[in-house]
């Protein structure tokens, strides 16, 4: 067990978390500035990022936290919180983070390349927070401590770190859609290990046998072939503060859909235009707030001519199913119909106003013209 594993685990999982957050923010078309704000907020608290102390050589020796979320918790998709030693993240996010890092650790060509993976994550974090010099300095400090502590380690020590991490990730076979799509993960949850491509830096392409005599002179060469199809690598990645890491593991795999090039296919062009148009708030959210406002009696709505602003709730997947269920429902199961009046009523409105008046409302948020935002502020005050 390597005691040096914990900082690497934190930094890489934290990096993956930021990639996922960034992708989610972009998918919901949150405008650029707000997204950056979210990431700047998340970056310092992303495990290990802004904690240079955690990487000092004299850090306390501690075993890795148990990675198991508990069978029961894992059975609840998307709900609940997993509490590990230092933070509480939703289950799905944790699963994504760990499977991504497991993939990176498993496919590292050399044990030492785990450091390049970590540097890739840190490089990306620095990019997310590039306009925040305060946090940027902290990340740079973490970077320097990492280089100071880990660069001098031997291959054997890195292999021990790698083995410790792999034991931590053992038996985790959660299927990740982006991995399945890219064919790097099989449908049984196991990762695809390629037997082709560049060999690690410092390794020779398999196939050659050299024989030496007792004087150390080479006397014979022989070759053997296997199913593998390896080639020599181009160059080694950089272990400095800045440099080309060469290795792609640890870079943002979600950024493939980033609409930066306008000459790409139609789908990404749509994304770009959508991103521009959606400065306005989500219309569904607006509707929800309007409905809530109506219930509270605080908003006058012009009803569209002839239209009804009510809604019908269908608990079945389709209307046909609902009809079919109604027809096949056994007679003996009688049920009462409950009428809920959600319309405005003077008496009720007065009652609600009185209740509102009694409640203590905290100081209002700095003004914004939108009625929707006022309502939010109101609710926050409650």
């Amino acid at each position: 067990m390597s005691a040096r594993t914990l900082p690497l685990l934190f930094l890489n999982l934290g990096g993956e978390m930021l990639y996922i957050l960034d992708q989610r923010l972009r998918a919901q078309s949150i405008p650029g500035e707000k997204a950056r704000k979210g990431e700047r907020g998340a970056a310092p608290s992303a495990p290990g990022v802004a904690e240079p102390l955690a990487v000092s050589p004299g850090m306390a020796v501690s075993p890795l936290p148990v990675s198991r979320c508990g069978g029961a918790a894992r059975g609840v998709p998307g709900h609940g919180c997993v509490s590990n030693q230092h933070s509480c993240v939703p289950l799905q996010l944790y699963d994504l983070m760990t499977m991504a890092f497991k993939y990176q650790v498993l496919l590292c060509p050399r044990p030492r390349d785990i450091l390049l993976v970590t540097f890739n994550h840190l490089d990306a974090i620095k990019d997310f927070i590039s306009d925040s010099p305060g946090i940027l300095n902290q990340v740079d400090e973490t970077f320097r401590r990492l280089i100071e502590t880990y660069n001098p380690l031997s291959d054997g020590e890195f292999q021990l770190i790698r083995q410790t991490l792999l034991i931590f990730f053992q038996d985790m076979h959660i299927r990740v859609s982006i991995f399945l799509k890219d064919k790097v993960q099989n449908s049984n949850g196991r990762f695809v290990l390629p037997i082709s491509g560049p060999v690690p830096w410092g390794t020779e392409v398999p196939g050659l046998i050299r024989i030496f005599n007792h004087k150390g002179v080479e006397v014979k060469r022989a070759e053997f072939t296997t199913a593998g199809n390896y080639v020599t690598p181009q160059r080694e990645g950089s272990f400095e503060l800045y440099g080309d890491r060469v290795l792609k593991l640890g870079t943002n795999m979600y950024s493939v859909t980033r609409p930066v090039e306008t000459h790409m296919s139609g789908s990404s062009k749509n994304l770009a235009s959508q991103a521009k148009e959606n400065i306005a708030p989500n219309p569904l959210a607006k509707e929800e707030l309007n409905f809530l406002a109506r219930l509270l009696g605080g908003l006058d709505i012009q009803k569209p001519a002839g239209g009804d602003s009510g809604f019908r709730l269908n608990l079945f997947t389709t209307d046909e199913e609902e009809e079919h269920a109604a027809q096949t429902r056994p007679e003996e199961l009688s049920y009462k119909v409950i009428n809920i009046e959600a319309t405005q009523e003077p008496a009720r409105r007065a009652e609600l106003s009185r209740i509102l008046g009694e409640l203590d409302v905290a100081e209002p948020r700095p003004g914004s013209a939108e009625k929707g935002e006022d309502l939010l502020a109101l609710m926050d005050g409650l």
Partner: protein
Amino acid sequence: SVSPQAAWCELPSRVLLVLTSQRGVQMYDADGSTMVFWHALDVPDLPAAHSVFARGIAAAGGRFICVGTSFGAVLVFDIPPKGTNVTLSEVLEQHRDPITDIAAEQGQAPDGAGDLVTADDSGTLCLWSSGEEFTLLGKIPGSGCACSSVALWNGIVAAGYGNGQIRLWEAGSGRIRAQLSAHARWIYALDLAPLTGKLLSGAEDSFVHVWQLSRDPDTDDIEVRHCHAECVTDTQVCGARFCDPAGDTFAVTGYDLSEILCYGPA
């Protein structure tokens, strides 16, 4: 605890199951029912971040069990023919880096070749002659790559390295006799079939190779040829062992694999 090693140590009088871990060394009866002996590692003065563990197990000289440690020392235990009176007979301190593997001579050692080889993280190999006092016969310096596993047969040291290479050394002279670009990733396991001189290697590149070692009786040159390759799809091979002394069958284990895969002649 993490990644314990387990090995059967066959001595003339008894077979012991030896386990290593972070805390030390445990020895059990052959059926695993009784713990015969337990040795806690003496943690030397090292910075906190250094790992402490035992790694590398071999029976030597028909009387001893040798266990390596992460601080480079090799513990030599004197095993009585029966009973629990195991004693720490010697501590060999020639390695400066964590021990990775230890192997005893499985065939017939030529004169002066020694009967034990120890390997460490720096790739350094030490050749020993076992006895009341172990004697260091030679040291093969590492060349910057960890030697992850080692085997010894008829005076030939077979060493597997973290960069996927297998090297064959002459135990007596310490000279290199063969260099095999065997694997594309870290070699995890080497095993030797003493009856035939077959060598088995397993690595993270998903491959298991079988090689044939031999000696030319006239020139005394060491020969090696490739016999067979198996690819364990999508699996990083962590363990590989021959199941019989002739090397006709072998078993393979891998990371995240709950099965032991057995390979044999068709």
